[in-house]
């Protein structure tokens, strides 16, 4: 019974395709692909709508107010209202803008964001597109985001836009390195770039209770934290939202966009966030596997989305809690701290592997990480640099 619930979506697709039994093979292929795309868009656009209102509500709660509660029950129809508003707004294009580039930028950014969603396994047998180098595909397509952001900045022919785009590209470039390098230990340990394999490698349980997710190894934990922070930067979220910091440069590269184009940017940002979180779940949090063997009766996709929601909640939580950092601090941390630590994760994973993947390896890799972390904090003089600031005149 639980198995059929688990496989309800693949079975439904099979049933759908069985209607085309007599058609040529390419037609079946096309329909299959279209079904996948359709399902993806449906799920994630719904999720986008849901999260956009949830974020506002959670933020409101953090800031001790109510948040949207007028449209529909608990304000749940707010995104629909927002969507209608966005759609019927006037689409303003600056007179001296590079019209084509200005138009293509939101298209490209949304397209890349949605493409990256395609390789993540959402449940048992529920990977929309199985590519041999899925992880590489994720990053290859994701790197086009930078081009899109640049196009937005350039096409608007606006100083704020250009500056915002430059900032965004600078920080995205800087954090793409730790982001990718923190993925490497997982790829190394699993020996595959395929997300399905990575998920499968985390299937076992120690004593049937503690899952063998990579986040529970020292290198995995360290890599996950680095990955998460880099993900925050990649999706331009607080506390790393200098590219669109409204108090400094209006809205960065989105300054000259309005109406539906603006909504597209907004959506692309959220979908990028989903994709990064989804990848994090796949790589470190065991993908769609249940956290304990007994809990496997609950369908796999439910687990995936539960984990995804937890991560998204942390994103929102961080946004509600932390102030915006300065650009030079962001850059410093990327090159001086994140990058060396990311490399350390690779070494620690190797140590873990060669020490037998058991308790011994666990302790050794912990040692490596602790040593490098300590050395780095001494070298970078973090105790002094990150000390609480003393305000001498403000009190």
């Amino acid at each position, binding site marked *: 019974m639980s198995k059929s619930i688990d496989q309800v979506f693949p079975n439904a697709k099979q049933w759908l395709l069985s209607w085309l039994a007599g058609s040529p093979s*390419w037609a079946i292929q096309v329909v299959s692909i279209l079904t996948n795309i359709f399902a993806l868009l449906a799920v994630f656009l719904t999720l986008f709508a849901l999260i956009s209102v949830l974020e506002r509500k959670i933020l409101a709660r953090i800031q001790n107010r109510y948040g949207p509660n007028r449209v529909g029950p608990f304000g749940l129809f707010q995104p629909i209202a927002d969507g209608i508003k966005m759609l019927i707004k006037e689409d303003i294009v600056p007179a001296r803008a*590079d019209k*084509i*580039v200005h138009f*293509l930028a939101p298209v490209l950014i949304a397209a890349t964001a949605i493409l990256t969603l395609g390789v993540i396994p959402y449940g048992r047998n529920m990977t929309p597109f199985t*590519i*041999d*180098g899925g992880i*590489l*595909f994720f*990053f*290859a*397509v994701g*790197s*086009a985001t*930078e*081009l899109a952001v*640049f*196009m937005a900045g*350039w096409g608007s022919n606006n100083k704020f836009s*250009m500056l915002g785009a430059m900032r965004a*590209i600078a920080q995205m*470039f800087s954090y*793409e390195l730790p982001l990718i390098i923190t993925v490497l230990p997982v790829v190394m340990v699993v*020996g*595959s*770039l*395929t997300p399905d394999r990575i998920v499968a490698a985390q299937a076992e349980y120690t004593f049937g209770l503690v899952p063998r997710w990579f986040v529970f190894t020292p290198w995995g934990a360290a890599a996950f934290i680095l990955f998460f922070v880099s993900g925050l930067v990649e999706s331009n979220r607080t506390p790393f939202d200098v590219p669109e910091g409204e108090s400094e440069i209006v809205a960065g590269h989105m300054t000259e966009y309005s109406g539906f184009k603006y909504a597209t940017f907004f959506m692309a940002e959220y979908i990028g966030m989903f994709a990064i979180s989804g990848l994090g779940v796949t790589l470190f949090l065991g993908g769609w596997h249940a956290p304990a063997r007994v809990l496997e009766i609950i369908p796999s996709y439910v687990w995936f989305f539960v984990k995804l929601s937890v991560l998204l909640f942390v994103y929102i939580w961080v946004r509600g809690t932390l102030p915006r950092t300065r650009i030079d601090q962001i850059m410093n941390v990327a090159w001086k701290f994140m990058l060396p630590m990311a490399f350390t994760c690779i070494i620690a994973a190797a140590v873990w592997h060669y020490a037998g993947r058991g308790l011994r390896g666990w302790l050794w890799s912990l040692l490596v990480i602790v040593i490098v972390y300590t050395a780095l904090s001494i070298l970078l003089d973090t105790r002094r640099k990150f000390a609480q600031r003393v305000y001498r005149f403000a009190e």
Partner: protein
Amino acid sequence: MNGAAFIVISILTLAAALAAATLRKLMHAALSFAVAFVGIAAFFFLLGAEFVGLALVFIYIGAVAVLIVFTILLTRRDIEKDRGFNWSGVIIAVAVFCGLTWAILKTASLSIVAPHIRALTVKRIGEALMTSYVWPLQCIGLLLTAALIGALVLAMEEKR
């Protein structure tokens, strides 16, 4: 191998490449350049070299194209519109194309269809890179480091 896909991809690639070579606005040309490389990556996918295609997209769209647009941004003053066009180049290019095509068509042994081969997995490429190609790989690493530092030093603001 799919003929329809081939036609679509080649038209896309060649059109984008031609746009990159001829468009007046530099920025549009650079973006067309990126599109052309997407097309080439698609070719690689079509030929079964997924990894190379992904690497191509990763490097060219993610890095080289961004570098080019940044360079355009930094040298913006005199190039809003690039007027100069050298027609002799067109003649030479066409001549080269004709020569090459003629040579290719003349060689009968080239008109073959692709045999069935084992899928080229990332694992196989990785094994080759780490065994028989490990020295070239190291050399490339060195070269990239040198290029990185060299480019930095070149582009750094000169002290006066």
